[in-house]
């Protein structure tokens, strides 16, 4: 663990809110461990961390949406015992989260005053609402008609309204969770102007981002979270991006992983050519997976990693490009055809897509294989045969409990994930698409899943996996495609695959010799400061 560096901004003002040794666990998994944090009036704190480092948990505790298991929250020097969302608002803690809290059918003005409408003669004072809303918007240099329903605004405008709404609350703290993720450069600049004005007005700002170059642009201080711990805290003047990256990712090498599965031959089992989805989440993605190879896709949240796997499987509408499975080219993949060609998808969303939770282990594992005439001649299920097949898989994957009639709902996360894997194992496949194969899975099950992935490749299959777990990407993949804003930013192989290089490319910083793959129309990395 890196020692916590201190120092930085010289004259610091009063602390608005502090977390004192806060720990938060979810069903035994530690999300935040002994984290202390002070937000000072008139200062912008940037919070950095990988996916799953605990940033959202921390924000949710600050706004009272989650209660810490241990530790305390102190606002303006007073420890607050019953800290709730209502209490947080009363104390002037305002947040703009990634999920907006605006009612789409109401106008901007009505949204700004929702729940605290001024009343005149027993009815809402619409004139006053409009006038005050107009004033509030103008303060931020916004010129939108306040009568416009929020549904008509674009994302950046909604975000501005959301910020105005936050600023209409009691002054104190403003929390911004990745506010620039979908903003243009111009909108970003305007947001940063607003932030510096708020600083002058003595607001304390907590700014969460994935973009390293923003640290210097808006921050006074930067705090890095890793695996739920606060590992570093610097004044921004003194710190290099390289140092921040190593703080974010520096983990010990693990013995969890099997040796890397490299291609057995040059035979390509899956190839995408300039794949672009209708929803625009991925653009011109060309990649290939060879026989016997484990290939990873890495990138930040919303970089489009999962979308690639989903588009290959036909769950997202493809607009341009094609998917080629074992030599058969598809312009419009759909799950049925893709499965027939020998490619299977293991979704990350166990609740929504991977499992019928209320149904049994047997039904879940056999669901897709049932289509074969061997298991259901004339549409009637041969239960003895199905049970035998499923039992064999349950044994092989060591799924607990052994009772195959148990509802999947009752299984632990690791065993649920094994059931998802089990469905893919009902027959041999050419390509496996794993979307976050070990999310929420304990170490024992992880090791088992890696082992099985390796065995599948040894038998000649190709694996494409998407993971937000950097360590997993670095240690499991023989090749890695790093995505940034919907495009492939880099293709890394062999020694090029290091945590630092993956992170650098996923932030869109393509400098360095690792950059072997640059899309012709690739997104220009933002100027590093």
């Amino acid at each position, binding site marked *: 663990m890196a020692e916590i560096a201190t120092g930085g901004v010289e004259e610091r003002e009063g602390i608005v809110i502090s977390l004192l040794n806060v720990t938060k666990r979810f069903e035994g998994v530690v999300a935040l461990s002994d984290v202390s944090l002070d937000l000072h009036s008139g200062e912008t704190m940037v919070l950095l961390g990988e996916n799953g480092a605990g940033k959202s948990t921390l924000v949710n505790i600050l706004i009272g949406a989650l209660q810490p298991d241990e530790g305390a929250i102190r606002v303006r020097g007073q420890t607050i015992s019953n800290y709730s969302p209502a209490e947080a608002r009363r104390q002037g803690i305002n947040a703009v989260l990634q999920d907006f809290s605006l009612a789409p059918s109401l106008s901007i003005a009505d949204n700004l005053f929702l729940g605290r409408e001024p009343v005149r003669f027993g009815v809402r004072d619409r004139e006053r609402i409009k006038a005050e809303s107009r004033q509030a918007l103008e303060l931020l240099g916004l010129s939108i008609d306040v009568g416009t329903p929020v549904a008509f605004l674009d994302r950046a405008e909604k975000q501005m309204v959301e910020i105005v709404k936050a600023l209409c609350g009691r002054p104190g703290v403003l929390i911004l969770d990745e506010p620039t993720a979908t903003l243009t450069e111009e909108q970003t600049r305007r947001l940063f102007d607003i932030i510096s004005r708020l600083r002058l007005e003595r607001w304390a700002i907590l700014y969460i981002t994935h973009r390293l170059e923003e640290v210097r642009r808006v921050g006074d201080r930067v705090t890095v979270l890793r695996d739920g711990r606060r590992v570093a805290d610097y004044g921004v003047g003194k710190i290099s991006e390289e140092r921040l990256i190593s703080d974010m990712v520096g983990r010990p090498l693990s013995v969890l992983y099997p040796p890397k599965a490299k291609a057995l031959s040059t035979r390509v089992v899956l190839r995408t050519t300039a794949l672009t989805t209708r929803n625009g989440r991925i653009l011109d993605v060309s990649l290939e997976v060879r026989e016997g190879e484990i290939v990873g896709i890495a990138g930040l949240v919303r970089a489009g990693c999962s979308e690639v796997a989903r588009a290959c*499987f036909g*769950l997202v509408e493809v607009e341009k490009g094609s998917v080629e499975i074992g030599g058969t080219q598809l312009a419009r993949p759909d*799950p*049925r055809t893709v*499965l*027939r060609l020998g490619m299977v*998808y293991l*979704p990350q*969303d166990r*609740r*929504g*897509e*991977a*499992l*019928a*939770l*209320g*149904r049994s282990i047997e*039904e*879940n594992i*056999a*669901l*897709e294989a*049932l*289509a074969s005439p061997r298991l*259901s001649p004339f*549409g*009637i*299920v041969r*239960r*003895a045969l199905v*049970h035998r097949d499923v039992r064999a898989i349950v044994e092989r994957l060591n799924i*607990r*409990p*052994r*009772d*195959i*009639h*148990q509802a999947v*709902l*009752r299984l632990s996360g690791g065993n649920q994930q094994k059931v998802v894997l089990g*469905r893919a194992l009902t027959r041999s496949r050419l390509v496996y698409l794993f979307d976050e194969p070990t999310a929420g899975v304990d170490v024992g099950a992880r090791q088992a899943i890696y082992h099985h992935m390796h065995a599948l490749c040894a038998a000649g299959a190709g694996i494409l996996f998407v993971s937000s777990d950097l360590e997993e990407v670095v240690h499991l993949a023989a090749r890695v495609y790093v995505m940034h804003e919907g495009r492939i930013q880099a293709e890394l192989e062999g020694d090029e695959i290091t945590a630092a290089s993956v992170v650098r490319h996923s932030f869109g910083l393509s400098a360095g010799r690792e950059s072997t793959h640059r899309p012709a129309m690739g997104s220009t990395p933002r100027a590093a400061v």
Partner: protein
Amino acid sequence: MPAGLLRGIFVRVGALPFLLVAMIILFSAANRYFLGLQNVIDMLQEGVFTSLAALGQLFVLVSGGFDLSIGANIALTSIASATVMSGVYAAHSHDPMLAITAGAIAALIVGGGVGIINGIGVAYLEVNPFIVTLATASAFQGATLLISQGQEVGGLPKAFVDGVGSGNWLGIPVAAWIALPLILALYVLLARARYGRYIYAIGSSTGAARVAGIRVPVQLLLTYVICAVATAISGFLLTARVSAGEPLLGAEYTLTSITAAVIGGASLRGGEGSIGGTLLGVVFVIFLSNGMDLMGLSSNHEMIALGVALIFAVVLDRQRARAVSAGFRKRITLYGDHRSSEET
């Protein structure tokens, strides 16, 4: 310990067995004819109509949907099949079987058509099943009244009314003999066929079904057709029972079918429910209405009781879901060596 045992049975099979025992005790205490042979046969006869509609409803509930057009379907079937039957019978009065066959075919066509319309609305236009079937119920009711001019359709063959409607064979109502193979077929479809696995999966998680390569819209369409055909057969048998095509026949079956299926363990959240449970649910609603009849209470009282029963069933359903998930935490190790009843 006995309390724990009772709780175990409740979690496993629900409250229904307890309720049925209580009802038998209550109603036979109130009227000794309740368990008399004739009354049991009467209940069986009535149970046939309810069973077919409730089993149809069960299929739709398992797939995660809802069918509010069951009552309207029964009325439309009744009018359409009676109109066809009386027409054919008037032309060929020497051949009642021809007329009955024509009427049966008309009923199946109506059922198939109703199912396809509901199914297209839900599966392909992707409109909420509640809205689709509420709307089609209104449309079917309107069509029924247009065709019949609001009048009963009489002139049905005697063989139909006396044979199918109130005949017995080996002491069992003819309608029950007709329904028995149908119920068996529905059982095979839901519990033994690939199709059944698919709709349980769709009802439990549409996304998971899609990822497993299941053509969700086709399976849903099929489900609404199965429901509507089963309901139409119920409407056809009811027409024989009341000896005429009636434009307002069967309105209560929408509520009854949902009540029976839900009280029998089908979940409004989809993905749960069984043929056996639903048949027990049918026994419940039949006991309720018949028992109250024997106690001299009017059908108005029955409607109140049925409404209360439905709410009660839904609340119980939720309690049970909670008990199941609460029990899970404590007994996680116990399930490891728990032997299933469905072992082959």
